[in-house]
């Protein structure tokens, strides 16, 4: 039985080594040629602004569109992290808008009460906008350049991801 234990230890050690070399989910800004235009939308605002929020209003600015939900665990980290970036870089021209995909608006309100942010928030209970953006995981963030093209997509969120995002935004702000 001791031999089996040794065997198992070696096997899993090897497996762990393999796992450690697996890649993450980052994407550096894609070049202008490959980038696709960001789909247009107009959604009702639920926080930090009035009326409707539409992508057209931000044409000419670097924009970050973030899809989140009250039920998304990592969003408890990503919303405050994004807010920190927004407060730093909004004076430099960054625009941020976040779209909640909650089917019940009250859930989004309750989440924002616990994790308040300062950027405009809209809600899409129907799911048509995330569909247009081919959202593949939650949260999903789309970095859009001044010409309205999607240059980077961030799926999921772990502590430290905000650093890469900040670098990408600074790069686009200089274009």
């Amino acid at each position, binding site marked *: 039985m001791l031999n*089996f234990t040794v065997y198992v230890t070696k096997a899993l050690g090897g497996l762990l080594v393999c796992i450690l070399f697996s890649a993450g989910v980052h994407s550096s800004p894609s070049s202008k040629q490959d980038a696709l235009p960001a789909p247009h939308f107009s959604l009702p605002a639920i926080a930090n602004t009035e009326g409707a929020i539409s992508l057209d209003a931000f044409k000419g600015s670097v924009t970050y569109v973030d*899809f989140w939900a009250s039920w998304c665990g990592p969003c408890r980290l990503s919303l405050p992290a994004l807010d920190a970036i927004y407060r730093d870089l909004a004076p430099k021209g960054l625009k941020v808008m976040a779209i909640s995909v909650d089917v019940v608006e009250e859930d989004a309100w309750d989440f924002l009460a616990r994790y308040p942010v300062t950027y405009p928030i809209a809600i899409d209970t129907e799911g048509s906008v995330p569909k247009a953006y081919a959202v593949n995981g939650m949260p999903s963030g789309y970095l859009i350049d001044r010409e309205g093209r999607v240059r980077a997509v961030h799926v999921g969120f772990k502590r430290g991801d905000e650093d890469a995002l900040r670098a990408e935004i600074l790069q686009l702000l200089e274009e």
Partner: protein
Amino acid sequence: MHCALKFCSYWRSKRLEAFRFVVLCAVMGVAGCSGLEPVAAWERGYLAEEGMQWQSSAREAKFEGHVYTSKEASSGGNGAAGGGCGCN
């Protein structure tokens, strides 16, 4: 490898005939699952509900497993066997 040989001979034993059939059906059922309608990432809110988790809490599951393994003849169905105890 001794363990693997034991499993093979046990698996092939007559007593597991019905059991093997059920497992085969189950595996085929899982493989055939690709025909399901996909659920988009933004539509998974309900799946995140507390009641939709496989276990209510990891510690409760561990505790229950411990109680039932020491008071009944069955064990497992929960994955790895933890350390034993002199439970009587």
